[in-house]
């Protein structure tokens, strides 16, 4: 049974002192996640964005496509810096496998992600 995606937005400060918007995902990230994720992303501003997957245990290829769509808009269109943290070791491997690590820093936790921005 698929767990519906929930997205919470919060703010933090990067090691550099710059403000950071964090989108924290809960539930599964799959095709049905497109609307909640892209809606929450559309309401964000600022140059630095973190995606928090610590509340997520399952991501499939459709979910990865949504993240790529978000990254494409944020980095290419918006010129924003994006980091990702909180993935399970398995999905950290999967994200690296598909090349997402080339366009977003993959960190194990929030502190490391804020330091990397």
């Amino acid at each position, binding site marked *: 049974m698929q767990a519906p995606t929930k997205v919470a937005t919060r703010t933090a400060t990067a090691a550099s002192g710059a403000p950071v918007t964090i989108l924290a995902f809960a539930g599964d990230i799959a095709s049905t996640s497109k609307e909640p994720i892209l809606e929450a992303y559309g309401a964000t501003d600022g140059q630095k964005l973190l995606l928090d997957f610590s509340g997520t245990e*399952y991501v*499939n*290829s*459709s979910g*990865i*496509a*949504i993240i*790529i*769509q978000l*990254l*494409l808009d944020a*980095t*290419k269109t918006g010129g924003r810096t994006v980091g990702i943290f909180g993935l*399970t*070791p*398995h999905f950290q491997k*999967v994200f690296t*496998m*598909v*090349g*997402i690590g*080339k*366009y977003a820093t993959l960190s194990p936790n929030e502190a490391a992600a804020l330091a990397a921005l």
Partner: protein
Amino acid sequence: MGFSPDRIEDLKTAVAEACINAIEHGNQMNDTLSVAVILSPGEDHLEIKVIDDGAGIIGQPATPDIDRKMAGEEDPRGMGIFLIQSLVDEAEWHQGPPGKSFVRLVIRLDKEKN
């Protein structure tokens, strides 16, 4: 069977992607059709067949290219078969029996030594 947690996660993702393909592409989202998953343990491997009512895959899709996706030149989707092939030791797509097709996945215990 003695697979490590890491290999079990690989298998879970590969089987989930195979089932998604079976539902979306094989059965064309027809909820009156079903998908069969058959697990056959061997001495040193586990074979999984995922069977649907579609015509099967004709030719392999191109390997996804993140740079082309990020350039907007390639659909962001289309990672499923790549993930399946990357996460298991064998992945083969077959047509038949009549009216059906299946993907056969194998993971081997000897990968534990790597």
